[in-house]
């Protein structure tokens, strides 16, 4: 073996060491903000969600502790323990009871701690603490004991005049915030790997090295993953012992008070991981990580966090109704990075029109934007945000006009109730009769007038005789004309009344609550028809994920294009032969002769 061989051996060792180091994938899973604190633990919760809940409960109690509200802190810790049987809650509750000089409760909590977690790294210290508390309690009841050692001081203030006053136990323990315990959950993949935790006991101790003497470091406990360990504040080193074919790996961990920490060692992965959490001003936004073209399923929906490889990542956040946001993010190994993005709404909205009529037309700002027929998808049109005039018409119905304020990136549902128009058949009939009568009157009047002129001319010529038949004829025509005018006028009045009279209310509309744009990734397509018999548009039924997903808006018809895309062919109804009926009719709408029929 020459120099070259030795150099190669050294390189191989270095490489092996690096590989060993890289093979340890320590996953920081912690502090998922905004997590829920459920009243009842759900067995179905994922580990992450569960830990989030534990963490929230722990931090709540910790916050009360820092604020000096020990009673409330105890309540929170007790609640946490009731839901999640982690001994850290018991210890912290005991610390709070100690702060309150409630020896009994403190004893209860610590004894319970020892009972449920006999292998805790600090079990001896806790027992010692129990001893102090018991001593303090014993000294406080019969005679004030004086304890100067062990940090416990009796509750008596002294003896004077042979009279001894019994008082509450004086606990000579000065817990600080750092005395609070944290819960550390350690997992490995695969599970079952042996773990050893070391604590840095000397501040100047050198960096921990696996297999070295490691002066200044003290072994705390050895467990197998997964493990829940209650640890005091401090610097620790977690060593995953050799397990199966996996090499030893380790990492440093700093424990802060009142926290819940989640460690996961992915023994099979060769990259360091970081935790990235993305939240936005709107929940449910789709997050695509390193997938600008959205060729893979979404990474998550805001708010969402997950361990990711350290390094630079591209982030795409989008949601229907909002403008897409792209940004680069750099995460480092072990970092907990939280990205808060603000999505801007698109500058347009959607007007959704719903009515009870089988067919209606919609105009916006005096421009026709479409016709909806029964059986077609719900009528929706994309409109620039802001105020617009809208008009909804339907044959035989009163037109409704209104002013709408279209929101940015949201759907404005307009529910129009179009009232039938007052039937005008009778009015038209009377109008026609009136016109006919007046026309007849005009004709008769003109004829009568001509006759009168002739007669007058004949009279002036001296040839008119009193028996001239034209006199009677003219008189008859004049009477007929007057009668026709009278009847025509009467018909006209009746017609006008029937035209004006309208007992029905005007059409109306109401605006439903604003809705977000449809998200096809959230609401997948439903193949079954709508129970109401209304086919929803594709984007209402959902659309396949991918590049087109945010384009749910693409399904919204726009102007002429929308009309061209007007859909589904309608079945032709069999033609009915025209039928006309004329019948007298009287109702609260009016009276007269009603001309009706089907054409």
């Amino acid at each position: 073996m020459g120099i070259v061989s030795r150099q190669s051996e050294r390189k191989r060792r270095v490489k092996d060491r690096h590989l060993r180091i890289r093979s340890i994938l320590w996953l920081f899973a912690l502090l998922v903000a905004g997590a829920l604190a459920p009243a009842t633990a759900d067995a179905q919760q994922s580990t992450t969600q569960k830990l989030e809940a534990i963490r929230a409960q722990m931090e709540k109690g910790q916050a009360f502790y820092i604020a000096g509200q020990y009673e409330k802190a105890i309540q929170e810790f007790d609640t946490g323990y009731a839901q999640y049987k982690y001994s850290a809650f018991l210890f912290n509750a005991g610390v709070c009871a100690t702060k309150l000089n409630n020896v009994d409760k403190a004893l209860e909590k610590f004894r319970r701690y020892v009972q449920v977690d006999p292998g805790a790294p600090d079990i001896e210290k806790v027992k010692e603490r129990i001893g102090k508390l018991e001593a303090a309690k014993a000294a406080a009841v019969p005679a004030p004991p004086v304890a100067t050692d062990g940090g416990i001081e009796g509750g008596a203030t002294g003896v004077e005049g042979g009279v001894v006053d019994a008082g509450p136990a004086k606990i000579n323990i000065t817990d600080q915030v750092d005395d609070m315990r944290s819960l550390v959950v350690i997992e490995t993949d695969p599970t079952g790997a042996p773990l050893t935790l070391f604590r840095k006991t000397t501040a100047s101790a050198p960096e921990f090295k696996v297999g070295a003497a490691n002066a200044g470091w003290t072994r705390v406990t050895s467990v197998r993953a997964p493990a829940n360990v209650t640890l005091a504040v401090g610097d620790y080193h977690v060593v995953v012992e050799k397990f199966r074919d996996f090499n030893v790996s380790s990492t440093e961990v700093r424990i802060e008070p009142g926290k819940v920490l989640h460690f996961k060692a992915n023994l099979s992965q060769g990259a360091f991981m970081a935790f990235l959490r993305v939240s936005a001003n709107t929940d449910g936004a789709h997050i695509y990580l390193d997938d600008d073209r959205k060729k893979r399923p979404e990474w998550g929906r805001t708010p969402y966090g997950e361990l990711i490889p350290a390094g630079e990542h591209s982030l795409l956040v989008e949601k229907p109704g909002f403008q897409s946001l792209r940004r680069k993010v750099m995460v480092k190994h072990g970092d907990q990075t939280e990205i808060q993005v603000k999505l801007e709404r698109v500058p347009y909205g959607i007007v959704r029109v719903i009515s009870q009529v089988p067919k209606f037309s919609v105009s916006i700002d005096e421009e026709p934007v479409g016709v909806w027929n029964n059986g077609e998808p719900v009528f929706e049109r994309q409109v620039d945000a802001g105020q617009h005039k809208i008009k909804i018409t339907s044959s035989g119905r009163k037109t409704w006009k209104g002013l709408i304020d279209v929101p940015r990136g949201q759907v404005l549902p307009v529910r129009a109730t179009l009232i039938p128009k007052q039937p005008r058949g009778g009015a038209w009939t009377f109008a026609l009769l009136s016109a006919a009568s007046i026309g007849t009157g005009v004709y008769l009047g003109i004829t009568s007038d001509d006759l009168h002129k002739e007669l007058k001319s004949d009279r002036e010529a001296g040839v008119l005789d009193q028996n001239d038949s034209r006199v009677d004829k003219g008189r008859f025509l004049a009477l007929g004309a007057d009668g026709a005018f009278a009847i025509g006028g009467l018909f006209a009045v009746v017609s006008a009344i029937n035209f004006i009279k309208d007992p029905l209310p005007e059409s109306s509309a109401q605006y439903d609550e604003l809705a977000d744009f449809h998200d096809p990734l959230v609401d997948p397509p439903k193949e079954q028809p709508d129970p109401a018999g209304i086919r929803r548009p594709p984007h209402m039924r959902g659309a396949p994920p991918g590049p087109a997903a945010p384009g749910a808006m693409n399904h919204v018809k726009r102007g002429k294009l929308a009309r061209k895309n007007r859909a589904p062919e309608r079945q032709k109804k069999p033609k009915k032969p025209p039928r006309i009926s004329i019948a007298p009719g009287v109702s609260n709408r009016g009276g007269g002769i009603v001309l009706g029929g089907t054409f």
Partner: protein
Amino acid sequence: MKLRWRTGFVCVLAMTASACSWARFDEVAKDAPVEVIDKPDELGQGFGVGLATASLADKVRLFVGGNDVNSPGAIYELGTADTPNLEPIDVGSCDQDPQSNPCFLGFQVAGAARLTGPDGESHDLCFVLGIGSTPNTGDGVLVRCEDNTEYAMPAPPDANDDVIAPAIDLGDFDRLRITADRTPDPAILVGAPRGLHAWYYGPNSLNPVELRPGSLDPELTYGSAVGIALVGSTRVLAVSAPEAEQLWLFRSDDNDSAELLGCIGGTPGFGRAVAAGVVNADANDDLVVADARNVHVFDAARLLELEPPAFGVTECSLGSLPPGALIASFGCGTNIDTADCDNSDFGTSLAVGDLDGDGDGEVLVGAPNMTARTQTGAGAVLVYDVEGERLERANDVKFVASIGKDDRLGASITAPNLGERSIIAAGIPGDGKTALFYCGAVVPKEASARCQ
């Protein structure tokens, strides 16, 4: 544009509405300028074939005759005002039973203010009707007066034998043409065209004077039309023989005689109708004669200057007329309302009446076959005014506004004198009516309320 359309529409409506008041027809027909006498139900066909008037004081009687024996006439009281009684005051004149009390109504009937009967009494408002017979007076020319007096004026012996007797005895009657002058006690002139006789009764006389022409073709008629023109106290008697184109003129200066004046004529149908009256400015009557196409007005005074034709001369002409005898001649004319003069029978009937009350008369010419207002045969009466010695244009055309086809207005004409003026009475035999024209172009509007 729209405003104009609306304004126009409103105007049309208002105009039409205002025009259709029926009351205006009552107004326009009230006191119409023409009154029409309808045929009484009792009478038969041809009502209006013959007309005659008899006026006395404020009584103005109009006799309207029918066609023949089966269509006797009726008498109406017109009064001097403009309000005639259109109901007959006497129906059945000359309606006697042809067997027991025959009466054959003349084609032309004469009216007289007064006539002296066989009883020597003067009877008012009489009409000389035609051939008849009364039990008291026997056969002759029947007269019926207001007082229901009826008598027969005897005919000359030859005429009695040729005309009266055949009618009375055999029913073979000749429709007489009878006329009277315009005096209150008029002379009567009778023509019997088939019997070729004409005779004359002087005022208050029942003595017939046979009027014989100088020569006469027995195959033709004589007496088809008769007329009496007054020139001073002299009467010019005109008897026509239109088929011979002759009008024989006689003069009578007393009640019992007449002498032949002469003969005029020479144009086809000359003398088919004859009338007399004051036409020009002088106070004498003028003679109006129609031929087949024209109407001529002769100054009767000048006609007295005629000389009898030489014996044996049978042709008459207007060439022998004394200077100034022919006042005017005029033919048919049309206006916007009338047409077809050629077939109008212009001159079938004639009358002279002072329609405008200016003292001289207007010539009334009947054209019963004229087309009036597109009605063929509706008939018309044309009015001509002669001022001084000059003929004015045809001043007026009269017809009934409600005229119908073949009414034959103007088949007979007379001019009842209402005192201040005359009116036109025209028979409408085709429709069984008679029209009274109170107004016209020549009549001042103030003459009557009807003319306002």
